[in-house]
């Protein structure tokens, strides 16, 4: 494979395209509403109505507007795409008939809706456009060019520099500068190095990585290959949750196709660079999102974290220097290499560069996936793009960062969405889950929901997390059952501080955050449930 061959594939594929493209969203959300039947019926209708010379029906990944799904988009009829929403398999005939100018009474979306108009797409640029199961589709939109450029025109150190210049920070949640991480792994001595892509998207209420993997698997593979070149690795592992079977099967297809074309394997683009990727399937453990636990799991062990240092960059998988990045971080790489670090750094705020994908869910009118530039005010996301709370209710709070994050009250909706601003409010950027709560939501119960989650997901290795989350959940249950006193609340706060400061890994260290942030902003909801202090010390004597 050389660049000429790559271009030839792209040209041939573009030439074979038909005038009108009917795109059917076949991502997990829409698939659950029989998107496969919709696609089959659309194909049948095209043939029945003798439009097969001009019309092709294409399977695409997530189009983003999941709450309005299943979605069908049409290109090549009007200047802008036509988007059909809430489609059923029996609507296929009418959709195809509309291509000939027939009227339909199907729901048509507005492409200028703020939900779409306010997005800046880098990671999700191809999502909902290309067929994730056809490598030619990816090549036709310029896929694997960045890898070629990196391999043939750049030194590994230049690649690291470009990523450093871009200001990209880890999209898994903590926001560690990606370039710095790459540089450390590149400098670590060792003949064998590994790349791990963390696709163990465990935050409940988040599905960004799932959508990227399902919609554009090659984007992630190409990002990993570029990273491998930059740090001097020849083996990658893509760790995906077992809960994402569609993502796994599309990745398997993608890896097979890339290998067949020589875009993965030995001597890529006729350079000495070799790179292979193996898929590792998770088995349901939230703690495996923590990098040291993830490595244990890749090694086929119990996914328990270990203290750092040593950091994975020095001693990681099988004791070798290892680069671990999140799916979305890798998905940003090709754009950075193609357009340059400076271009990327031009998007976003001073300290938070680029875009971020969010899964907008909960009590909100427009649920779905959005990609927005860093620094956009929360209000624009929630009120304009998301349309606010449904059924005439008021937005009360926005939860970001999942079980490690916090609840931001409505009065702070004007906060810009960047790492530092969210941290200041007692929440975190997190991996991109954004769950909106309305005024019917009880915040103490939300805190309990997350605490129960952390208790169940604690690996049990360290005492503060294992036993501390259990006691905190007990105390929250006591408060909800109106059996707690002020003293119990004090005990809860004391435990929050202790578990936060003494736990071994990120899971325990952040487990108290949902309680702390709801206590900070909605303390009255806790206090309303308290009973007056009783006599006596209220303690149990030691046996």
């Amino acid at each position, binding site marked *: 494979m050389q660049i000429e061959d790559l271009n030839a594939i792209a040209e041939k594929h573009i030439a074979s395209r038909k005038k009108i493209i009917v795109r059917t969203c076949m991502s997990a*959300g829409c698939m659950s509403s029989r998107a496969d039947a919709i696609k089959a019926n659309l194909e049948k209708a095209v043939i029945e109505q003798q439009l097969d010379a001009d019309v092709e029906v294409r399977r695409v990944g997530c189009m983003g507007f*999941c709450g309005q799904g299943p979605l069908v988009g049409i290109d090549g009829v009007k200047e802008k795409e036509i988007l059909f929403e809430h489609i059923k398999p029996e609507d296929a005939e009418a959709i195809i008939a509309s291509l000939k100018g027939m009227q339909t009474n199907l729901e048509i979306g507005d492409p200028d809706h703020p939900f779409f108009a306010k997005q800046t797409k880098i990671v999700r640029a191809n999502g909902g456009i290309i067929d994730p199961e056809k490598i030619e589709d990816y090549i036709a939109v310029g896929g694997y060019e960045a890898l070629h450029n990196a391999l043939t025109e750049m030194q590994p150190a230049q690649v690291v520099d470009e990523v450093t210049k871009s200001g990209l920070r880890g999209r898994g949640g903590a926001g560690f500068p990606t370039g710095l991480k790459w540089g450390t792994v590149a400098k670590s001595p060792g003949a064998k190095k590994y790349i791990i892509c963390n696709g163990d998207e465990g935050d*409940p209420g*988040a599905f960004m990585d799932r959508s990227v993997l399902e919609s554009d698997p090659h984007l992630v593979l190409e990002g990993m290959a570029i990273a491998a070149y930059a740090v001097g690795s020849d083996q990658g592992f893509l760790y995906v949750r077992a809960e994402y079977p569609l993502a796994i099967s599309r990745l398997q297809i993608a890896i097979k196709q890339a290998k067949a074309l020589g875009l993965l394997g030995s001597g890529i683009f006729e350079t000495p660079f070799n790179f292979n990727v193996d898929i590792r399937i*998770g088995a*349901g453990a939230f703690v495996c999102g923590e990098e040291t636990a993830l490595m244990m799991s890749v090694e*086929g*062990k*119990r996914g328990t974290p270990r203290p750092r240092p040593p950091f994975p960059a020095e001693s990681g998988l099988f004791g070798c220097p290892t680069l671990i990045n999140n799916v979305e971080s890798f998905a940003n790489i090709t754009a950075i290499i193609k357009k340059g670090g400076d271009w990327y750094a031009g998007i976003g705020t001073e300290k938070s560069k680029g875009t971020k994908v969010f899964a907008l869910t909960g009590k909100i009118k427009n*649920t779905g996936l959005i990609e927005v530039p860093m620094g956009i005010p929360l209000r624009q996301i929630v009120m304009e793009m998301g349309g606010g709370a449904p059924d005439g209710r008021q937005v009360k709070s926005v939860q970001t960062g999942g079980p490690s994050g916090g609840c931001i009250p409505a009065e702070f909706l004007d906060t810009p969405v960047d790492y530092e601003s969210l941290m200041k409010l007692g929440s975190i950027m997190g991996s991109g889950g954004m769950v909106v709560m309305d005024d019917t939501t009880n915040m103490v119960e939300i805190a309990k929901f997350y605490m129960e989650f952390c208790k169940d997901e604690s690996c049990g290795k360290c005492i503060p997390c294992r036993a501390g989350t259990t006691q905190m959940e007990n105390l929250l249950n006591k408060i909800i059952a109106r059996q707690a006193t002020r003293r119990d609340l004090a005990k809860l706060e004391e435990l929050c501080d202790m578990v936060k400061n003494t736990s071994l890994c990120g899971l325990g260290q952040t487990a108290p955050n949902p309680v702390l942030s709801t206590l900070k902003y909605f303390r009255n909801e806790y206090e309303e449930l308290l009973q007056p202090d009783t006599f006596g010390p209220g303690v149990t004597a030691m046996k």
Partner: protein
Amino acid sequence: MSLANTSLLQLLTSYMSAILNTAEKPPVTPKPAVGIKHPSGDKRFKILEVHMKKLQFKQDALIEVLHKAQELFGYLEDDVLLFVSHHLKLPPSRVYGVATFYHFFTLKPQGEHTCVVCMGTACYVKGADKVVAALEKFAKIKPGETTADNKLSLLTARCIGACGIAPAVTYDGQVAAKQSPDDAIAKVKSWM
């Protein structure tokens, strides 16, 4: 120290330094791994063995192997775990430890039908807890349990990533969108 004691200690020392060379090197397995056939003659064991061979009997492929085993047998019974342990040359305690660490693996047989309610945040705030409560009341079992007639297993999931269509319920592997307690009961009723 007597002479007999010295030689015993030397033996012990050399044995231990051999197994302690690498910190994580697994100890010797009690039984040889090559050519173990499962006495039952159940073909699924053969398929599992072929799968392990494809993965070169690599010990770090344990989770992959357990996925395959559960796919074949429906759940991981002791016999299967021991078979895996012998073939991958891993102590049984290690295989059991891994199999019980991850939610996805089950050591108990499942009912004929499974109903998995997603309890991710998005589903929770949209009433997934009420769906679970209704199902518990209807089937008289708690999540993680199977009905006495072995018809239904009720499970909860951490987040299946279908937040856009919350609350989501997976019936026998098929995800269904925006489920109300009544929807869920109607579906489950049709199985009973």
